[in-house]
């Protein structure tokens, strides 16, 4: 874990997003893509969501700011609220200032002629001055390593570079809740790490609520305080990562792997080697457990 990152701010009791028995079915699908999903996300949480392909993760993200069912239509039932506002009664334009959504496909989000304009578009649209917009643009660009692209057209960039620009564009708007829907899937591992650490900084220092949908289970287990596992439109687990990983069967059934260090600990347990009291979530925790094991003292 990055030692530069300060202690986490406490999670507030105020609710940012609430889904209550939500069901959703696309016009072309035969089954519900969301099946009786209830979820409360509180202000200041870092929530990780993972699951098998087709589990409903993207649809869940779109239900969090009203894109489902207001833009992507279908058969919706139940209730979804953002800061207490029903997504059925408030326009997406209003809800999107509270909840910023970053998708897997950067092409769908990049519209301006230069990267700098792309990053400034959001803050300017939300009433920031040019100076403020430029400041946040350069701050985020530096962290995401895209400063050298600021004057280039987004269309000239590689897929991974475009994705970094799309993430940066959402971050410069500074919404209270950031939802990243597999937004790091095309990035190299070091940039993935940087994006997770950036979100962590936004979370820890600015109290932002982060909802990260990802298959990057090692990064999720290190950064998320709570892990939601989805399968076939349902939430099958919703616990702190250390608790969630104890339910190995749930992960095996959904085809989602565990972090390698957690898998190592569980594998050794199965062989009768006691290895820490809790499954390790990070390399550092696992190293401590190894030291304790080989010196005869358990964590």
């Amino acid at each position, binding site marked *: 874990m990055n030692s530069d990152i300060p202690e986490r701010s406490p999670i507030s009791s105020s609710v940012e997003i609430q889904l209550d028995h939500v069901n959703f079915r696309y016009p072309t699908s035969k089954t519900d893509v969301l099946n009786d999903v209830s979820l409360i996300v509180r202000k200041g949480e870092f929530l990780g969501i993972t*699951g*098998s*392909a*087709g589990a409903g993760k993207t649809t869940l993200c779109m239900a969090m700011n009203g894109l489902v069912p207001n833009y992507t239509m279908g058969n919706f039932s139940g209730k979804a609220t953002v800061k207490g506002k029903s997504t059925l009664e408030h326009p997406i334009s209003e809800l999107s200032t509270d909840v910023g959504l970053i998708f*897997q496909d950067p092409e769908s989000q990049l519209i301006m002629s230069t990267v700098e304009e792309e990053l400034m578009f959001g803050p300017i649209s939300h009433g920031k001055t040019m100076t403020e917009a430029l400041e946040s643009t350069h701050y985020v660009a530096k962290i995401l390593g895209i400063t050298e692209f600021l004057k280039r057209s987004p269309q000239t960039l*590689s*897929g*991974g*570079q475009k994705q*970094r620009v799309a993430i940066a564009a959402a971050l410069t708007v500074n919404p209270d809740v950031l939802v990243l829907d*597999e937004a790091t*899937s*095309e*990035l*190299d*591992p*070091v*940039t*993935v*790490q940087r994006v997770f650490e950036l979100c962590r900084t936004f979370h820890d220092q600015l109290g932002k609520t982060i909802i990260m949908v990802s*298959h990057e289970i*090692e990064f999720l287990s290190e950064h998320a305080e709570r892990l939601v596992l989805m399968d076939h439109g349902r939430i099958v687990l919703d616990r702190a990562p250390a608790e969630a990983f104890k339910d190995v069967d749930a992960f095996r059934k*959904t*085809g*989602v*792997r565990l*972090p*390698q*260090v957690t*898998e*190592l600990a569980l*594998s*050794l347990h199965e*062989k*009768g*080697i006691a*290895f820490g009291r809790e499954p390790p979530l990070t*390399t550092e925790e*696992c*190293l401590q457990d*190894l*030291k304790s*094991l*080989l010196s005869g003292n358990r964590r």
Partner: protein
Amino acid sequence: MNEAIVLENLWFTYDKTNQVLRNINLSIKPGEFIAIIGNNGSGKSTLLKLIVGLIKPTVGRVLIDGVDTRTAKVSELARKIGFFFQNPNDQLFASTVRDEIAFGLKNLNLSKEEIRQNVDDAIREFQLVEVEDVFPRFLARGDKQKVCLASIIVMGPRIILLDEPTTGQDNRDSRAIMDLVTKLNGRGITIILVTHQMINVAEYATRTVVLNNGELAAEGPTREILSNIELMRACDLLPPQITRLSISARDLGFDGKMMTVQEMADAVRRLNGA
């Protein structure tokens, strides 16, 4: 026997100002399983396009089974190399799985019976019997990828290039596609895998090539490359978590070159006296 692929003093630029690839020299033997890794923008996808002949070198040359891509016909290269795209929708266009797999074969002057036999074999091998009449784009991503691989394999290529085949996939689909690729490699087909997923590199590739800012930063046995933490840091790469653990645990007696959880578990048991 010819090398499967030779890259000789290879330079490439799209716009004459930015050199995307600089002086790449590399030989790949038939039947190798090679991973190409590097951060975003390091030139990996460009290198694949050069190998398959979609673009030609600015300087230097690419030899495929001894044939220079600058002078070879596209159809000649297409018989030797299969290209597996990151997004399966980029290569699916027929109205049924059966037609998709048969499409390439129809250009090879084969009889209808030979085509039918080849397609039947591929459908069985890739377990597509139940969906053979389905519109390929309606399939789940994992099945779409099987159709793409089947369409490539029926053409009998000796080399398959895979550009990020497991990006955005869950572990089950990722493993399924990698196991299929491994099976094809077992038949002697040369595999070139471009990926960011270091777990797959560690588990499947025998040799790894590292690109950094358009240059070949290193190449060698995967174990040596992924455990070289100084190299990985210099190229902005991150070894798999279990490899990082084994590097951090060198002081405890681990060799710092573990590639899989199973290897690490075995080492722990040995050191623990079990």
